[in-house]
């Protein structure tokens, strides 16, 4: 593997990581409020379709991204109504949303298979793409990739520095105390889940508008589940999600490139690595006493105040 191939591998890692990054950020926001949304896979599938359909009809990729986000909000709404308002079990609701989303996208998407829509194409970012190495890896992507560089910082700022972000975290950490302080858990969790759904939907839109420019069944291909894993890998920290997303994307890209050079390592074992790594990282940091970074109220529903 020569130097050019390493650069290409890193650039591919960024591209493979981007849809997962969007979805992970959405899930972080959701989980920070104490809501676990296991439906990411289904949400992404529906959004990928929605984004594609709108971009195809209007010729406007950005409208497609908005539509993808809107589909994400809609699917997240189903989840939120089931478990934030009606207090259903979050794990079950998320799984149901996955089944529903995969079914819906496949059912509704039938007429759009084989069509192509205007999407995002890579362009060299002015000035920054001239930086040696860094420019080749990070600044020859498409517009959604560049946007994804800013989002983690924006999300971090929102969660850490704004009042609303603070309240969302409070509800996720200590629902009882937040309630006592007069915060509406329901409202805050609803906001976080829907906004998270929008980000997850953008990840779906990336798949059908930037990664490929077509819609098919199974476009999400398990990436939603990877995002769920990545949230933990990143310890609910948006910036660390960047590293995680590129690592997961990198392993996928690496196993393909290793084969392209004629290597003989089993791809099953290679593909297993990121998941094992997540367990190891989780266990290691838990062992260092940092296992409590999960929002304490995650997965716990708050009963309505009476």
């Amino acid at each position, binding site marked *: 593997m020569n130097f*050019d*191939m390493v650069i*290409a*591998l890193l650039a*591919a890692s960024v*591209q*493979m990581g981007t*849809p997962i990054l969007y979805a992970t950020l959405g899930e972080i926001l959701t989980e920070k409020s104490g809501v676990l949304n296991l439906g990411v896979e289904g949400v992404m599938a529906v959004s990928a379709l929605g984004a594609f359909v709108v971009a195809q009809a209007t010729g406007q990729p950005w409208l497609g991204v908005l539509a993808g986000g809107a589909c994400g909000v809609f699917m997240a*709404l189903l989840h939120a*109504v089931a478990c934030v*308002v009606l207090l259903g079990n979050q794990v079950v609701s998320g799984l149901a949303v996955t089944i529903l989303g995969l079914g819906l996208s*496949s059912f509704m*998407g*039938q007429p759009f*298979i*084989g069509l*192509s829509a205007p999407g995002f*194409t890579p362009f060299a970012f002015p000035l920054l793409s001239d930086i040696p190495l860094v420019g080749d890896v990070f600044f020859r992507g498409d517009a959604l990739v560049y946007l994804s560089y800013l989002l983690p910082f924006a999300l971090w700022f929102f969660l850490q520095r704004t009042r609303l972000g603070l309240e969302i975290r409070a509800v996720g950490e200590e629902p009882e105390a937040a309630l006592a302080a007069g915060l509406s858990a*329901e*409202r805050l969790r*609803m906001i976080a889940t829907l906004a998270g759904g929008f980000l997850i939907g953008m990840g779906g839109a990336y*798949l059908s508008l930037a*990664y*490929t*420019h*077509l819609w*098919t*069944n*199974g*476009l999400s*291909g398990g*990436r939603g589940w990877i995002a769920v894993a990545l949230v933990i890998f990143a310890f609910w920290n948006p910036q660390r999600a960047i590293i995680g997303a590129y690592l997961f994307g990198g392993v*996928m*890209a690496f196993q*393909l*490139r290793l*084969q*392209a*050079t*004629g*290597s*003989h390592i089993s*791809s*099953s074992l290679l*593909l297993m690595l990121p998941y094992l790594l997540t367990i190891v990282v989780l266990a290691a940091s838990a062992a260092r006493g940092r296992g409590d970074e999960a929002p304490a109220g995650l997965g716990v529903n708050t009963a*309505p*105040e*009476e």
Partner: protein
Amino acid sequence: MYRFKPFLIVAVLTLSAFLTFGCANEKKEAENSQATTEKAEKAETATPKEMQVGFIYVSPIGDAGYSYAHHLGELEAAKLPGVKASHVEAVPEGVDSERVLRNMARKGYKIIFATSFGYMDSVIKVAQEFPDIVFEHCSGFKRAENAGTYFGRMYQARYLTGIVAGSMTKSNKIGYVAAFPIPEVIRGINAFTLGARKANPKAEVRVVWTKTWYDPALEKDAAESLLDAGCDVIAQHQDSPGPQEAAQERGVYSVGYDSDMSSFAPKSHLTSAVWNWAPIYTYIIKGVQNGTWRSEDIWWGMDKGVVGLAPYGDMVPQDVRDKVGAEQAKIEAGHDIVFQGPIKDQAGKVVVPQGETPDDAALLGMTYFVEGVVGTAN
């Protein structure tokens, strides 16, 4: 005091609206369907000897890939007089396929086509329970009194596409995005490589396994990984057009599979190796209708039109077309010239000696790569 927020009300209203809409429609549809079923019953009594033919597919037919190609064959078969065709799609291999086969048999289907390799055990099992029904299994090697097998010699088309790719490459490196290391795929890669090296002895074929039949994003990246490694033509044994897209974006050539993939990459698409199942389906169904059907192993090739090439892209020069045309004419005349000794494996060892050709059993069990393939066959 806990209050219901407007969104809940909206949500409930929407759902109830859906419900009333559904019910209202139901009534209307009820009347309609009654009328149609009556009509259907009348039609049925008019032509009582209509034969039901069932197909099971492993993936949704909407995937534009392998199952879609079979479905096109189903649609052709349905046009035959006295035939009514239906299918169940996305049937997992194993216990589910066994149930679907059995239910089709119970419902009075006379011929059942199982189109994926993994259905093999189920077909044999269910065929024993329903000796009066004809089962046909695609790509398998187990047969019974009432269960035949059929497949197409896709490797012949692969060989021709290999000639095209070998003629068009400048870097002498051709990329091949492949699904799973099973003989069908390996045979195709070998045939493709033999074709490429016939046109260009210096050509090598690099293989990447995705372990997916259909993941457009991953398969696109697999193609990119091959492009990064210096390949300038991309071929594929995948059902998604992802690799085609990758080739077009990088401005290199591509060879498609399953059906004509030119619409996905008009600027890069040289040709595709395509399936056409209609001749086999027609042959089998007619055989059953005439009472001449027997359990056999149908493995038809280009001479019968089961596999073929999609129309060439404009960039394929005439001399290449002529070269391919000459080989194609031989194959269509019934001379299977693809695997002809001497054939060496990757280590350079002669596996098929000079002047010999492997028999069908050897072709069906092919698990090694020929010389010129870079990659591993497992």
